[in-house]
């Protein structure tokens, strides 16, 4: 059995990479992917601690996180498509006004 510390460390690394992606990248689609990566890192910790403490609640929570992620991606991508239609660009630096 792999010690749980290793899983938490891996999750911390993946979460940091995701946060860096949100801060560095200019493409909103890649920023979305980085958010998915951070959600995934959190899920990994949930499942690791579920295994350690032998309670199933963590796995159920991961299931709900996945559902929320799916809903978030559907709405977010629809927003990006709408923004692209009005501005003909999805560069995040140009998204600085609420009014199209």
């Amino acid at each position: 059995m792999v010690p749980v510390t290793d899983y938490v460390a891996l999750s911390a690394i993946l979460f940091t990479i995701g946060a860096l992606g949100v801060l560095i990248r200019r493409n909103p689609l890649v920023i979305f992917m980085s958010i998915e990566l951070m959600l995934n890192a959190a899920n990994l910790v949930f499942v690791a601690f579920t295994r350690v403490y032998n309670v199933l609640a963590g796995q159920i929570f991961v299931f709900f996180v996945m559902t929320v992620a799916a809903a978030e991606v559907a709405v977010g991508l629809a927003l990006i498509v709408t923004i692209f239609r009005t501005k003909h660009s999805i560069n995040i630096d140009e998204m600085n006004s609420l009014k199209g």
Partner: protein
Amino acid sequence: MNAQLITFFILAIIAIAAAMAMLFSRSAVYSALFLVLNFGTVAVFYILLNAPFIAMAQVSVYAGAIMVLFLFVIMLLGTELLPPTNALPWQRPLAIFLGVILFAESGYLLFIRNAATGDVPQPIQTFGSPQAVGQALFSSYLLPFEVTSVLLLIAMVGAIVLAVREKGK
């Protein structure tokens, strides 16, 4: 060093490399494909952690549905490559600095104020099986499960309302 530990480290290296490649590849399509690879390795971690149901959900929902949606939108908009902009030249160094701080904080919490180490108990045979997860989902967590369906419905309606072109505009 047993087989499980070796598997863990090989997969961990692949997962981190895929995440870094996602971060630094210039084309958004490559980023999406590297993220699929990352999700696949995380699914194997779930199997190592006695969570086969979550592993399958990971492959079908994340690596399947969500990433197909991403690739579809990337190719629909034709924005694989954005022209490089230098709007904020100090942004990248600041982002790396903040990332290092975040990683140092989590490392501090993990290794200095070490909480959960010690022996991991051997799980009972059916722990994390789809049957056990389903039973918990439909008994103790029935209300959140139903709320989930409402959430998905709202997301679906919202996505359609946003994406549909209004006539006469």
